[in-house]
Structure formats: structure tokens, C-alpha cells
């Protein structure tokens, strides 16, 4: 699949250390235009750090990141400009607490893109409708459920007209019954052809929506392949062990030294 189109995201030799701690140890990854790639792996495997290195919220220690033809790791890259094309959705939503839902979606367009208020609000309302929150435009973030906040955050990112969307465990902070609405929005986005890189623990989403699944462990890509194969028939022992624990946690044996 990735051979048919030019890669939208290219990561080569990416490393990241925090002090002595090596979180990423040489990651190579391509994401083709319109592809949905899910990154799975145990906590501490570096998957969130990988995502945060792609829009340079974290400065990589080594390696290059190219998105849509622009190399973000080039020291002379205008990051603020390139980030407009890269939407990001966070585990903790991070809606702006002092702004109404409508302003959360409209203000970034006005401040960053220079859109006038009327157009920005029109785009904001369109995108809120797209995530099923047309009736919550005047609400404050604190008045929304977690699932609604996350969908508003997705609308905020979409309103900037991104070419790529990064999702950093978008449903991990949600109550179980609220996960479905967020995944439904992400699924429809995938069906519209958005290029998406998703760090997630939702295996059913990865299996059904992703084109590819990447399994990371210890700062390395252990396995990378079609979603059904990696989840249904993993090649690697470590992938098998991880999936067994995630898919049937009640049956997993206690590892010695497990936390």
C-alpha cells in the first residue's frame, strides 16, 4: 500500500533521550498519504514520544522527520508554519479552559491563520457538527463530558485544515462508555482519507480501521505490518505476549518483577 503513493510522513533513524534514559533508539517509519497507522506497545515503549517527535513537541536527539515534503528536523524549518498542517489530539484533550467550545475551535484559526471572525466561526461550527457537537458550541469545556471534550479537541485540530492527524492515546482518559463516540469520529475521518498516526490501546479499532499496525517495545519498532496480521497473527514473541495481555488481561500470568 505504501508503495503506491509518496510517503506523507517519513521518520528515519529517530532517537530521543531524556538525560540517561534512551526512550527512542533509532526508529524508521513511513506513513503514506491517506494511510491509517496505529502504534501499539506497552507503557514506556516510547510510542507517545515518537508521536511528539513528529511535530517536534519533543526535540529528537538524532534522526530526521519529514512531513509532506518539509523536513521538520531542519534547524531552519519554520515549525509554527509546518505544525498548521499537522493536527494533534492529546490524551488529556487540552481544551483551552478560558474559552468557550466555539472559541476553542475558532480562535486558533484567527490567531494562527489570520482568518476573520465570521469565517473562523463558520468553519468552527462546521467542524463541531462534523464531530456531533453542533449544539455544544456555546458551552464551556468544563461542562462537557470527557468524550465530548475529546471530540471538540478533534474539531479544533480539523478546523486548521491539517493534512495529517496525530492521535496520542485519544481514548485512554475516557470512561469506557464514552470511547465509542470518539472512535466513531476517528473512523469517519479515516474513511474520508485523512492520513492518521494513532497511538492507542484500542485493539478493535486498530484491527478494523488501521491499514497498518506498528508494535513498539523498548524504544524500537519490533513489528510493522498489515493490521490483521500484526494483531491476528503476530510474528514476534514480544508482540504475542503483549497482545495476550491486552486482549485477555484476566488470563495473563503474573510476570516476576511486574509492577
Amino acid at each position, binding site marked *: 500500500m505504501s508503495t503506491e503513493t509518496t510517503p506523507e510522513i517519513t521518520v528515519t533513524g529517530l532517537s530521543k533521550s531524556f538525560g540517561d534514559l534512551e526512550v527512542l533508539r533509532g526508529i524508521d517509519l513511513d506513513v503514506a498519504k491517506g494511510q491509517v497507522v496505529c502504534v501499539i506497545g506497552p507503557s514506556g515503549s516510547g510510542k507517545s514520544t515518537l508521536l511528539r517527535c513528529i*511535530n517536534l*513537541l519533543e526535540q529528537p536527539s538524532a534522526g530526521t522527520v519529514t512531513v509532506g515534503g518539509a523536513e521538520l528536523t531542519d534547524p531552519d524549518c519554520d515549525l*509554527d*508554519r509546518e*505544525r*498548521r498542517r*499537522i*493536527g*494533534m489530539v*492529546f490524551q*488529556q484533550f*487540552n*481544551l*483551552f*479552559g*478560558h474559552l*468557550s467550545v466555539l472559541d476553542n475551535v475558532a*480562535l*486558533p484559526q484567527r*490567531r*494562527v*491563520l489570520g482568518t476573520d471572525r465570521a469565517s473562523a466561526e463558520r468553519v468552527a461550527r462546521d467542524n463541531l457538527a462534523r464531530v456531533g457537537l453542533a449544539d455544544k458550541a456555546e458551552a*464551556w469545556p*468544563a461542562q462537557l463530558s470527557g468524550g465530548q471534550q475529546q471530540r471538540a*479537541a478533534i474539531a*479544533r*485540530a480539523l478546523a*486548521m485544515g491539517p493534512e495529517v492527524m496525530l492521535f496520542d492515546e485519544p481514548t485512554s482518559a475516557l470512561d469506557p462508555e464514552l470511547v465509542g463516540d470518539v472512535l466513531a469520529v476517528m473512523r469517519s475521518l479515516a474513511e474520508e482519507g485523512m492520513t492518521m498516526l494513532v497511538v492507542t490501546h484500542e485493539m478493535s479499532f486498530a484491527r478494523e480501521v488501521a491499514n497498518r499496525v506498528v508494535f513498539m517495545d523498548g524504544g524500537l519498532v519490533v513489528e510493522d505490518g498489515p493490521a490483521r496480521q500484526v494483531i491476528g497473527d503476530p510474528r514476534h514473541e514480544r508482540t504475542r505476549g503483549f497482545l495476550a495481555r491486552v486482549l485477555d488481561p484476566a488470563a495473563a500470568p503474573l510476570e516476576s518483577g511486574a509492577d
Partner: protein
Amino acid sequence: MALSPRQRRRWSRGAQYAVFVAVVVLVAVKADWAQLQNQFAQGDLAGQLFPDIITVALRNTVIYTLAGFVVGLALGVLIALMRLSSVGPYRWFATVYVELFRGLPAVIVFILIGVAIPLAFPTAVIPGGTTGKVALALGLVAAAYMAETIRAGIQAVPRGQVEAARSLGFSHAKAMRSIVIPQAFRIVIPPMANELVLLFKDSSLVLFFGVTIAERELTAFGRNLASESANSTPILVSGLCYLLLTIPLGFLARWLEARGARSR
């Protein structure tokens, strides 16, 4: 006799009430009320203070204080941002500034502005006359406290807010202006109201500049009239006027705080 915990609490509370009432009664009985009334509560003297105590003294107190607050706020935001700057000399300057003006008594800053600046720069004129000098002196002192408060407020805004803004393409400066500082201000409303109350009182230090009759604020006005009439009633009335300003301010701050809490 063993008391149950509930009975012990009852006895303890009863004893606390008793002590409180005893102290109030003791003070009320021992004080020389006639003398106090004679010296502090002369009705006709109090009447003569009006309307000047409001139209001149209270008005000047408000003007001096607000001018100082505005200067202090602008300077305080600047110092707070310098303190958080990635540029070393800015951080050092801000740290030295805060330590200096937080450590000096406000009186000394007033004397320095009133005496040292005219000596050092004989031709320099601080714009705004007495109000300008008060604004500068109060502002310099207030900025040191406000800078620390604002810095704490900025740091209390969750990191995710900046990350979300940066991921949308906000520059660092724009993220500060549109996202962080507005939220920091909500966090610092209570300590800022506190600072404003302190400034109302410190505005009385204007008397170290020497003031004309039209420039007197509440304290100078009260003291002047007290010495003219050889009676302290004007002092008491001046004091009540301060409360007239500061108590509503407390209500306003609580209201703003509650309003901010709703939107967070």
C-alpha cells in the same frame, strides 16, 4: 468520670465561647468610652469633613492607587516574563529586581524617588506631577510582588495548554498572549485583589513627597484636620473611608473568582 468523645467536644466548644465572651466583656468594661468618644467620635467635627473627604481625599487615594496598580501590573507582567525567559541576563535582572524591591520598605522607595531622583537628575521631570511620582513609587514596589504572583500563575497553567497551542501552530509568544496569560490572570485574581488592598494603604506614603491641599489623600487629610482641630475624629473617619474602598473590593474579587471558576 469518663466523658464520651461527643461530650468532650461539647465541653471544649463551650469553653471556647466562654473565653471569647469574657475577653469582649472585659475590653468593653475597662475601656474609657467617654474619653474615646470625645477624642474620636465628635459628630459635628465629622460632619465638617464632608464633602472634601470624599471629593478630594478619597478621590486622590483612588487615583494614586489605581495609577500605581496599572504601572505595577504592566511592570509586573514584564518582570514575570523576564523571569521565565530563556535569555540569562533577563532572568538575572528580574531576580535582582524582585529581591531588591520586595526587600526595601515602601517608605524608603518613596524617599528615594522624592529625594534621590531630583538630586541625580536635576532636569528630569517625572510626568504626571505628584500622581506620576506616586504611580512610579507604588508601581516599582507592587511590580516586585506582582511579578512573583504572575510568574506562579503562569507556571500553574497546565503544560498541556501550551502544547496544544504550539501543536496548532501558535508561536511561543502568541501562545503566551492568547492562551497562557489569560488563564494565569484568572488564577491570580485573589492575590492581585490582595495587592490592590495593600496599595490603597501604601498610597498614604505620598506624604513623603509633600502634598498641596488639593493633592491630599485620606491619611494626609485626616492627619491635617486632626491637628487643626486638636481632635482625632478625622483620623477615624479617614480610616472608615479606606474600609469603604477595600471591603467592596473583597466582594468584587470573590465574585470574579467564582465567575472564573465556572469557565474552567
